[in-house]
């Protein structure tokens, strides 16, 4: 028996020895530790698909253009300026001089062309070492990329494509060609860019360590080391912040917000997000939902303000349509669209007019959790109670997130709660997918138009926005589309989530971005 203990003790000790590793030399200095809700999967920007991976990778890279902090406005980055050909078929970028990648190789048009060519060109010898989904979707309109001069890069398009710069800022980060050639498939775990922080090491499930890039073209960051640590459990993440184990966390639960704000050592940063939380009505399945008067009644029945105030503790902005105000100038304001104020009496009147004075039964599908879903079950419960108050009896049916995608893409519901996060400053991605008549969802054609919205004028306007290069005209077209959408009342647009992060007060100068935590500007005591 005693022997057994000795053996167990030995095992334990040797495991601990194996798990521990001495700190690498020179790791001290000004360090910021960040708690992220999940671990990273891929660190090669053009292969990154999830919002989480973006948070891990993007402090190490730059694109030709970038999104201004706190908005989606496009600003120069590795390209100092650019020109669009009159026919819209090509973009010419004038690149910044004197920039080097973290591996010491120079950044120039040749390097940028190779990095982008690897993504969009299946013939590129390094294309086969990665999986580049956006090559056929977001960046699918790019025909070729060429270095015209040492610092002049041209992107040729198959057809004029208005969202190009938005997608380049989001998905067109430039990776060191030398690293691409050296690491081949392993480039996914060996990121080399031009960004403010350099990759040091990644221990999966434990941490990603970065150090500052002393030669960063905007000037070196004031912090020397940046460490991102996966911490899936929200309450544990809060404790880690309060005990000083981490300096910065994301994913703050609304219920803890008041407590955090009271804590003298902590600061909270809030910002608008490009997300929208909504309930979609399948207008083709349940007869009453095919009637616009009924849909408008349901819109009047739901108290969005109460949901935002009581369930979300104010961590959201009441929505009037699909686009968050962050997507200005495209986002419609209350003036531009049909607004349905909370008015149960009006709802009852509309239901009676439509012949449903006695109400009707429906099922409201909702996921237990999921990307951008905020507090789905509590929110759906309030909606259920609101509907009951006007006589509509909703039964809640909940799903696991993965299984729920099938329900969503095949339109298999009466009413269903979803969210959509528009990661770029261009509303094409949500409006086309959800409202173009060719995107109607079915088992044969899984897609995102699951209210079965169909309007030839909207189709035409949406097609036009893709090729219209005049911004004012695009804004007008998008507003027209949003008006039509709200008229049809086939969605309850509930709220836009607030981006919420909390940090130790030793962190200064943090500027919030809706999706990525950028640490270049940050200083710490």
């Amino acid at each position, binding site marked *: 028996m005693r022997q057994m*203990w000795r053996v*167990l*003790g030995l*095992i*334990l000790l040797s*495991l*601990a020895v*194996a*798990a*521990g*590793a*001495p*700190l690498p030399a020179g*790791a001290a200095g000004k*360090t910021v*530790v960040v708690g992220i809700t*999940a*671990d990273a*999967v891929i660190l090669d920007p053009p292969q990154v*698909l999830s919002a989480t991976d973006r948070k891990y990778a993007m402090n190490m890279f730059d694109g030709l253009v970038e999104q201004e902090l706190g908005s989606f406005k496009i600003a120069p980055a590795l390209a100092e300026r650019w020109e669009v050909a009159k026919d819209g078929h090509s973009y010419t970028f004038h690149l910044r001089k004197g920039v080097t990648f973290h591996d010491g190789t120079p950044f120039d048009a040749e390097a940028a062309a190779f990095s982008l060519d690897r993504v969009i060109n299946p013939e590129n010898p390094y294309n086969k070492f990665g*999986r580049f*989904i*956006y090559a*056929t*979707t*977001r960046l699918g309109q790019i025909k070729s990329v060429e270095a015209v001069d040492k610092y002049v890069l041209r992107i040729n398009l198959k057809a004029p494509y208005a969202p190009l710069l938005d997608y380049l800022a989001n998905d067109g980060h430039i990776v060191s060609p030398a690293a691409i050639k050296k690491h081949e498939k392993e480039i*996914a775990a060996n990121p080399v860019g031009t960004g403010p922080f350099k990759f040091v090491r990644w*221990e999966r*499930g*434990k*941490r990603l*360590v970065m150090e500052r890039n002393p030669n960063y073209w905007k000037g070196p960051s004031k912090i020397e*080391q940046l*460490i991102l*640590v*996966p*911490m*899936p*459990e929200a*309450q*544990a993440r809060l*404790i*880690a912040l*309060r*005990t000083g*184990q*981490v300096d910065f966390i994301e994913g703050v639960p609304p219920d803890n917000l008041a407590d955090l704000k009271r804590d003298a050592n902590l600061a909270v940063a809030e910002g608008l997000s490009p997300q929208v939380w909504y309930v979609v009505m399948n207008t083709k399945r349940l007869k009453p939902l095919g009637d616009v008067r009924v849909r408008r009644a349901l819109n009047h029945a739901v108290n969005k303000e109460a949901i935002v105030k009581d369930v979300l503790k104010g961590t959201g902005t009441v929505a009037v349509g699909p686009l968050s105000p962050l997507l200005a100038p495209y986002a419609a304001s209350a003036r531009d669209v049909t607004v349905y104020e909370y008015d149960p009496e009006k709802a009852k009147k509309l239901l009676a007019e439509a012949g449903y004075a006695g109400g009707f039964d429906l099922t409201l599908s909702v996921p237990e959790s999921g*990307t951008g879903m905020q507090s789905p079950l509590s929110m759906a419960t309030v909606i259920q109670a609101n509907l009951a108050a006007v006589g509509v009896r909703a039964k809640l049916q909940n799903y*696991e997130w*993965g*299984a729920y*995608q*099938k329900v969503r*893409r095949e339109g298999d519901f009466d009413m269903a709660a979803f969210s959509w996060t528009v990661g770029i400053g261009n509303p094409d*991605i*949500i409006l086309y*997918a959800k409202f173009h008549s060719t995107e109607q969802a079915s088992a044969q*054609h*899984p*897609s995102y138009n699951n209210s079965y919205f169909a309007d030839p004028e909207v189709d035409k306007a949406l097609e036009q926005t893709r090729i219209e290069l005049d911004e004012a005209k695009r804004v007008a077209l998008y507003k027209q589309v949003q008006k039509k959408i709200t008229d049809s009342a086939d969605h309850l647009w509930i709220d836009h989530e607030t981006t919420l992060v909390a940090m130790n007060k030793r962190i200064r100068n943090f500027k919030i971005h809706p999706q990525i935590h950028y640490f270049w500007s940050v200083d710490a005591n």
Partner: protein
Amino acid sequence: MRRYLIRRLLLLVPLLLGVSLVVFLIMHLSPGDPAVLMLGQDATPAAVAKLRAELGLADPLPVQYVKWVGRIVRGDLGRSLWTSRPVFDEVLERFLATLLLTAASVCISVPFGIALGVAGAVARGTALDAGLTLLTIAGISLPVFWIGLVLMVTFSLHLGWFPALGMTSPAGGTSADVLYHLVLPAVTLAAPSLAIIARITRTSTVEALAQDYVRTAFAKGLPGRRVMLKHALNNGLIPVITVVGLQVGQLLGGAVLTETVFAWPGLGTLLVRGILARDFPLVQGAVLVVATLFVLVNLLVDLSYAYIDPRVHHV
């Protein structure tokens, strides 16, 4: 003995085949498509079809299953759909952390569990016994994530004795640092096992104490301590060892909740991520590895009966 061992090891083959088929079917037949989850809002029908083909999901299910088993026979667990890395590497990397946590929690739950159980048996009927019973029932019924959070709030937030979570300090750390980080999750994970072991030890020791040979031992004047340790406990331990074996087997599969709460980079968190993302090869491979270990641990337990109790012989 050797024949018994060989027979048990050979039984592994049909068992693992069965496990592989069940995991494969559960993963592939449950709704949810990895391609759709990966693409998110970019999941146009064309992009989904292209990605499914790249991921090898376009073949009919039986073909996929045969291909997968064929690879396993050659020692290849396949590659994760999300990271494109070999599943074996992913599992191995996480396994060390899980093994460490499991070993530590066994080091806590077994001695303390047995001690509490024996104390309860010796003091049966007294207030101490009642108190211990209450404590063990609490240990069994309280959800482990709650225990974890309470320990974290108490010993990390308020007392500041231990770090809240992770396996090392954020920048990485020495072995001592790992042991320091190990305390709270190990105690959390040990709590329910400790309680179960205490309950079972108490019951079986009470039974053993009522046996004739124990009475004889007392009658021939042996000191109580010796009777307890040498005579009663040895026999009382048989069911305890069975339970410990099962618990260890389970823990090796990853203590999902404890690992999640404490951000412990083990197999449990890997499996959860794999399941949520419908990473078929990752989940299938990890479950196969875990199932093999589970069977081996149970085999060890069966063999240990012979060691503990001379009456048991495997023929």
